[in-house]
């Protein structure tokens, strides 16, 4: 790790002022950044601790929720408003990492966390377009069990590893950004970029900007929603596939629906085609199958990750069938 300076920002303005320079990084819980610094993947010279920035979790004016970017993941999952109004979000956060990591991790850091691609994380031994643009991608012909089947490019097939963001995507989360030029808001589903030719540029956030809050509109899904994570061991492992589903039913038909996937794409994957196909439909196996195929028609399957297509389909079908059944 390079020598670093450390300072704690007392306010957003303070943070913006300190964080502008070359080599500066915002430090949340550090669960991702400190690890990357130790591995040499990231080599900042200045850390600006943003955990003293707003971390409240409150009812928003529209009846939704506003979550300060410095809120710890565990605080979000434990919050009564989240547990009753957005259980899918609480479940997704609780599916991630360990209790210790969740106590440290901030919402801002979680949204901004980097991929767990093995080659991205191996500075000395692997080529990676995300780390060193143009150097090549060792994952494509290598171990890509955790890699994308949707949204990847010839340059990069890394997945975004967050569980929380999958639920935020399904819940129409908005990312509130502060920058030198003022504040702006970006839907979470538009916050992360697909790799294309530039896998090194992962989000729409400018280096001079910071994430200050996430807001969620009121959600109709509390009664029928779920987050299911499929992984290589029972706990403390990243998702192979995860699915967030929220439903409302009118008689036997889908009224509103929201579906997002984790573990299969470079970003939390909101499945608009599945939603479109199922809105107003009854949740028959054939309807689900057709909807799924619409979303995954152009999936790129590699030897190491091809199984995820079937896995995603089966997991989604089981969840929809259960959630669409008689209300609990």
């Amino acid at each position, binding site marked *: *790790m390079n*020598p*670093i*300076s*450390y300072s*704690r920002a007392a306010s957003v303005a303070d943070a913006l002022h300190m964080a502008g320079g070359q080599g500066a990084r915002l*430090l949340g*819980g*550090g*669960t991702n950044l*400190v*690890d990357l610094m*130790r591995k040499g993947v990231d080599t900042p010279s200045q*850390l600006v*601790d943003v*955990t003293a920035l707003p971390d409240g979790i409150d009812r928003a004016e529209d009846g939704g929720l506003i979550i300060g970017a410095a809120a710890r993941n*565990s605080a979000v*999952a*434990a919050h*009564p408003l989240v*547990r*009753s109004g957005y*259980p899918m979000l*609480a*479940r997704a956060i*609780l*599916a991630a*990492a*360990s*209790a*210790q*990591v969740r*106590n*440290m991790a901030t919402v801002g850091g979680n949204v901004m966390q980097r991929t767990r691609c093995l080659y991205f994380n191996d500075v000395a031994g692997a080529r990676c377009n995300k780390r060193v643009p143009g150097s090549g991608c060792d994952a494509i012909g290598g171990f890509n069990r955790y890699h994308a089947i949707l949204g990847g490019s010839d340059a990069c097939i890394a997945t975004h590893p967050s569980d929380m963001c999958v639920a935020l995507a399904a819940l129409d989360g908005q990312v509130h950004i502060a920058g030198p030029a003022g504040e702006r808001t970006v839907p979470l589903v538009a916050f992360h970029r697909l790799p294309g030719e530039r896998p090194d540029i992962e989000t729409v956030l400018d280096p001079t900007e910071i994430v200050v809050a996430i807001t969620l509109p009121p959600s109709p899904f509390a009664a029928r929603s779920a987050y299911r*994570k499929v992984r290589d061991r*029972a*706990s*403390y492992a990243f998702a192979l596939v995860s699915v967030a589903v929220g439903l409302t039913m009118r008689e036997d038909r889908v009224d509103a629906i929201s579906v997002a996937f984790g573990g299969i794409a470079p970003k939390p994957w909101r499945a608009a085609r599945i939603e479109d196909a199922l809105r107003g439909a009854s949740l028959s196996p054939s309807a689900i199958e057709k909807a799924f195929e619409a979303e995954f028609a152009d999936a790129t399957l590699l030897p190491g990750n091809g199984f995820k297509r079937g896995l995603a389909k089966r997991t989604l079908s089981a969840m929809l069938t259960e959630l669409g059944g008689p209300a609990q």
Partner: protein
Amino acid sequence: MTIKVNGQDFPPPDDARVSLLDLLREQLHLTGTKVGCNQGACGACTVLLDSRRVLSCLTLAVQADGRSVTTIEGLGTAEALHPLQAAFIEHDGFQCGYCTPGQICAATAMLEEVAAGMPSYLTVDLAADRITLSREEVQERMSGNLCRCGAHNGIIDAILDVAGEHRP
């Protein structure tokens, strides 16, 4: 500012790269906190930061400035064991003993979390504010602490025993 460790104040290190773990082990010689990976992946370095369990390997010591840290040394001594420490001995909740301080610190905080109504991934009704502490609940909540010797059964038995819900 200072870092309070087991009730005593210490200055933060000059080198901002020093992790809380290395501050404890190398500078304060509080070696009860262990290092298993330095990657956030094993839980051996678990300490309590303002009473919450965190990984000291991924915490920079400067981040703990103005906060209070409790390590295994602050929980109990050989003469006056913490109930969890005694239960770990009784249930043979360790073999090599290397993951043990982290397990015990994690378990201490875990029981507080349960008392405060914190749900887990396995909690069926997330909206409920009382947690029924099943064996599986404890297993899930402790899954951030790896043990390679395979003392898992003894560890969970010890925790359930202290939680007062021991079942045979």
